């Protein structure tokens, strides 16, 4: 089934104010740049965004933040962003902080039809508040719930017309699980190839999870902390 759309603008057709999105990437690594910029241009409002981080001031999620398009962020770490800090302190933005592994697993569970599961992370901390606590194998655990979203916005290295995706290096991160947890999953890829060109042994995200795919353009791939040995 051909799932190719022309570009990010076409890919986000139907997205409307108040939607819940998942956004792949770790820091600025592996974020769906084209789709974020299309959301910015379309000025979609009141977004609830599930993303490990919140971008930087002028790039990634930070762009939507500056334009006040975000109502709520569900993340594990939101440093590196002054505007975020300001909106949070002034109550313009709601933020839920979730341990990173729990966030990753909640998304994986959402895509896999698992409504709830138990993990040890956060036991005895404020993360425990309001959650069921239970002992297994002599260790205390919290019950955590699966997470899904109206739209999952992911970025892959290569993709085919059927929606099969392959990620590169650590740009995979949250993208793979999010692809399965979106009711509609929009994938942007650096390289779009005809179906049959990717080795089926090496597909990270099977096409069944992807509803729309397009070839992204003008990737900036900004580096947050260039750290070198020379």
């Amino acid at each position: 089934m051909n799932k190719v759309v022309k570009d990010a603008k076409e890919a986000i057709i139907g997205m409307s104010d108040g939607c819940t999105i998942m956004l792949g990437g770790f820091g600025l690594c592996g974020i769906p740049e084209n789709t974020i910029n299309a959301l910015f241009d379309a000025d979609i409002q009141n977004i609830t965004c599930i993303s490990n981080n919140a971008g930087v001031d002028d790039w990634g999620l930070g762009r939507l933040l500056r334009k006040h398009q975000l109502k709520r962020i569900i993340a594990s770490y939101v440093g590196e962003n002054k505007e975020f800090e300001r909106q949070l302190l002034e109550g313009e933005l709601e933020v839920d902080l979730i341990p990173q592994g729990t966030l990753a697993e909640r998304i994986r569970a959402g895509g896999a039809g698992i409504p709830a599961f138990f993990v040890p992370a956060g036991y005895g901390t404020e993360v425990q508040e309001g959650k069921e606590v239970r002992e297994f194998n002599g260790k205390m655990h919290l019950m955590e719930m699966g997470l899904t979203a109206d739209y999952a916005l992911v970025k892959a290295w290569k993709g085919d017309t059927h929606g099969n995706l392959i990620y590169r290096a650590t740009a995979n991160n949250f993208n793979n699980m999010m692809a399965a947890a979106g009711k509609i999953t929009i994938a942007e890829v650096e390289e779009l190839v005809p179906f049959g060109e990717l080795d089926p042994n090496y597909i990270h995200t099977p096409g069944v999870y992807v509803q729309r795919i397009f070839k992204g353009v003008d990737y900036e791939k900004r580096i947050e902390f260039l750290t070198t040995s020379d």
Partner: protein
Amino acid sequence: MALDKNGIAKRIAQELEDGYYVNLGIGIPTLVANFIPEGIEVTLQSENGLLGIGPFPKKAEADPDLINAGKQTVTALPGSAFFDSAESFAMIRGGHIDLTVLGAFEVAENGDISSWKIPGKMVKGMGGAMDLVAAAKNIIVATTHTDRNGKSKLIKKCTLPLTGVGCVKKIVTDMAVVEVTPQGFKLVERAPGVSVEEIKNATEGALIVEGDIPEMNLS
């Protein structure tokens, strides 16, 4: 004389065993990678999806798709593997990582740790720290013994919001190596030239001192 950051890292590196899979937190823990003893093979895990972290890249080779959990550009050693964040924390939560080294604001006598939130200050989030401390088989805290104001970080009971409960096994500071035992903090080694008395004074929690406490061997 109290150790500098590299001294702390060097002492922690002595805890490594051949074949260990290790997750190093941001800050002093990252420095441990520079002191892995000769003949010991250790594989470093980065929770954003890499097993086999290599040295920082040359500038020309920095790859935006290849970063560590501190969002710094890194390299991947031959024989490494990339994976998604769910797999990465499955690895951590499932007990497949032998050792986690991380920083802390406070460690309590019972092994509780506070490391992510200071009331009144901007909260950046816990990242993967809660998952790591709740799951790793062995957790070493790397920290200065006291904060900038001279207040002890090894205390009776944590005052800041917790990262995890009863999980820290060992603390390596600029002054000492301290084990967290069921009876509380136990002094194991002193930094070169630092006296037991000085360590006691810098430790708010009760400190068990049994017999002669040797100096760290950092040669």
